[in-house]
């Protein structure tokens, strides 16, 4: 079985796994941050990721703003949309069961996806790579853009983790996760912090979307297709665990890549097999207890 596997095939699939893992990590991190502070299972995360890619496409095609400009602008635009969503949809539901938030955000996802599909159709729209070409590593060809995606996502994940675990703002977020009323009694405007945190999580999703635009087709369904995997990542890592979400994102990306090499038929389901085992043997998540907040 292993005799036919070349180093090129293995390295190529691992690279794809790493790229996918980068997106899984960034998306699941945003989801974990939102869940950790707000107890909201943000089903609109995939749609917000798709919106990031679409805004980048619109900026390029209608305003001539290139990828690097979109990398800054699109997350801001989509985060503003997230702030409005939080105010209008999530705030009225904040004292109700998780299920209400989940259903409300799922509705938002369906509406956004439907509107984009109605306006731009279902077929994907191409987005040019801002970093064409690549480097020959001998055993494989490494496109520059994919290298950029891996490095930038690592930096973003590390930066976000440092922000939450090692800054004063992060202390507020972790404390508000435990006892929001007590943090408010210290004079901190927790409702505003919650709104901004949602905006930040949405901005991260949009940033992932901009980065995904040159790799995948920009299409209305790009969010919904990745969303179910992202939820599996968050469940396996431990709901609300940021470091768990990031590490599980990369691990599952690799695992998918390896499965494509050794048993391609199982590649699409391996994540869910892991999730079932995690739920049975580590229901709080693989990384529960591995960070301060656990």
């Amino acid at each position, binding site marked *: 079985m292993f005799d036919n596997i070349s180093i090129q095939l293995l390295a190529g699939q691992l690279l794809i796994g790493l790229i996918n893992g980068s997106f899984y990590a960034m998306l699941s991190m945003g989801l974990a941050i939102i869940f950790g502070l707000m107890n909201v299972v943000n089903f609109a995360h995939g749609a917000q990721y798709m919106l990031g890619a679409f805004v980048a496409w619109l900026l390029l095609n209608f305003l001539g703003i290139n990828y690097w400009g979109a990398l800054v602008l699109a997350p801001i635009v989509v985060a503003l949309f997230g702030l409005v969503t939080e105010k209008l949809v999530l705030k009225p539901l904040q004292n109700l069961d998780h299920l209400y938030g989940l259903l409300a955000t799922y509705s938002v996802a369906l509406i956004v996806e439907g509107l984009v599909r109605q306006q731009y159709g279902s077929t994907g729209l191409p987005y040019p790579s801002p970093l064409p070409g690549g480097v020959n590593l001998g055993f494989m060809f490494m496109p520059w853009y994919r290298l950029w995606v891996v490095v930038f996502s690592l930096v973003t994940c590390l930066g976000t983790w440092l922000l939450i675990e090692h800054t004063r703002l992060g202390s507020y977020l972790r404390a508000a996760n435990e006892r929001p009323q007590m943090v408010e009694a*210290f004079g901190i405007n927790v409702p505003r912090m919650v709104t901004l945190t949602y905006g930040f999580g949405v901005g991260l999703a949009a940033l992932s979307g901009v980065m995904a635009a040159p790799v995948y087709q920009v299409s209305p369904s790009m969010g919904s297709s990745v969303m179910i995997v992202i939820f599996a990542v968050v469940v396996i890592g431990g709901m609300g665990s940021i470091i768990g979400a990031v590490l599980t994102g990369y691990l599952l990306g690799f695992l998918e890549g390896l499965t494509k090499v050794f048993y391609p038929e199982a590649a699409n389901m391996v994540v869910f097999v892991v999730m079932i085992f995690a739920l049975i043997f580590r229901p709080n998540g693989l990384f529960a207890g591995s960070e301060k907040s656990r």
Partner: protein
Amino acid sequence: MTNDTAPLLSVQNLCAWYAESQALHGMTFDLRQGELLTLIGRNGAGKTTTLRSIMGMLRKRQGSIRFKGEELIARKTYEIARRGIAYCPEERAIFASLSVKENLSLPPVLQPGGMSDEALLDAFPNLRRRAGSMGTKLSGGEQQMLAIARILRTGSRVLLLDEPSEGLAPVVVKEIGALIRRLKEQGFTILLVEQNLRFARSVADRHVVVENGRVVDVLTSAQLDADMARVQTYLGV
């Protein structure tokens, strides 16, 4: 607007509800500048609810809470805190995900005179030794010290303390008592919820007796000593 005779904090006809269940039925009392006042009463009388209502932590409230002449009844919790009232809850609310040092430095300085981390660690040497530990690894007494030390960071001069002696060994209760007396000497105004009568007697100027969500008596410590039988009837002991 304040003067020496006007109360610093005036609670008038305060009513409060947990969902549809009414917990306070018209609490009325005043807290004067520099005073240490206790709220005493049986379990469920409404003492903790009174503190939480003053802090705006109950959504449904009616009546009046005036602080330095300003009405607070419609204010949000963080707005009330920023005006100079700090709250230390009965369960101490030490954050499990934060270290002792992080717990201590969590509250922002809201008023002039808020203590720095270093000043607090000097004042509470036990906490300095445990600064790197997670907050919930401390003993009950250390957690209580941390909970009180933490609110001193804010610079608030009015402290609402909910049963700081609860569940602590007698020797630790003495330490907490000494700390509270020190705070009073430093000019803090303190509203203290306490079930331990001896402890309350040892630190406070006046005692407000609470029953069924309303004030039924106000006693000085001398009156408390003189008519202990009446007080014990109130407390059901």
